[in-house]
C-alpha cells in the first residue's frame, strides 16, 4: 500500500518543547503532504514537499523527506497548547490518488 504510516501514534509534550512526527511509505511518490485535524472534522493543509525536495519550512514547521528511506518527518518547534491536534501525512502519486496514514495525536500541555 502507498499509505503513509505515522509514528508515534500519540505524543504528549510541554509547551515550548519541540514535537517530531514521522511518516513512512512503501512506493514511489509524487509528493508528500502533512495535514492537521482538530475535533475529528475537516483537515487543514500544512505543508507539501515534492519528491525532488529534501526539506521545507513554514513558520514553526519543518518537513524533511528522504526518498531513499521512504520516510518524512514533521517538526513543530516551540510548541503551543493550540498545536494540540491530530496530524496526518498523505502520500500523493503521479496518477492522482492521495492516501492518508492513521495519524499522530499530539497533546501540548500548557
Amino acid at each position: 500500500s502507498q499509505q503513509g504510516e505515522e509514528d508515534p501514534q500519540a505524543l504528549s509534550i510541554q509547551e515550548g518543547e519541540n514535537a517530531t512526527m514521522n511518516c513512512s511509505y512503501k512506493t514511489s511518490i509524487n509528493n508528500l503532504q502533512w495535514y492537521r485535524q482538530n475535533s475529528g472534522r475537516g483537515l487543514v493543509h500544512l505543508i507539501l514537499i515534492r519528491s525532488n525536495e529534501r526539506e521545507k519550512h513554514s513558520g514553526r514547521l519543518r518537513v524533511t523527506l528522504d526518498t531513499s528511506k521512504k520516510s518524512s518527518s514533521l517538526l513543530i518547534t516551540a510548541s503551543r497548547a493550540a498545536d494540540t491536534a491530530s496530524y496526518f501525512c498523505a502520500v500523493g502519486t503521479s496518477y492522482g490518488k492521495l492516501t492518508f496514514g492513521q495519524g499522530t495525536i499530539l497533546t501540548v500541555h500548557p
Partner: protein
Amino acid sequence: GAGVSQSPSNKVTEKGKDVELRCDPISGHTALYWYRQSLGQGLEFLIYFQGNSAPDKSGLPSDRFSAERTGGSVSTLTIQRTQQEDSAVYLCASSQGFGGAEKLFFGSGTQLSVL
C-alpha cells in the same frame, strides 16, 4: 463558494435505508475526493474524480457505495441499504489542477450514524 461545502453535517438513519451525501467543491477545482473516517482512525480513501476522466473507485468498500460528479462540480455519495458499520464521518476534499500533486481543501464532513 469560499470553501468546500458538505451537506448534511449530520445524518441519522435506520439500518437498511439509503442515504445521499452532497459535496460542493471550490469553484474551478478539477479534482474531488471522498474519504471515510471512523472514530479515532485515519482517513480511508473511497473515490477520486479528476476532470472528465473516469473516476478511481478503488476505495469503495462494497457495491452499496456509489458516487457521481455532475458537470464537473457537485458530487453525491450514495450508500444503499446502510449498515451499522457504515457509521463514520464522510469527508470531501477538492484541489486545483491535478489531484495528488496539489494540496487538498476539505469540507467539514458529514457525520453518518446508522441505528
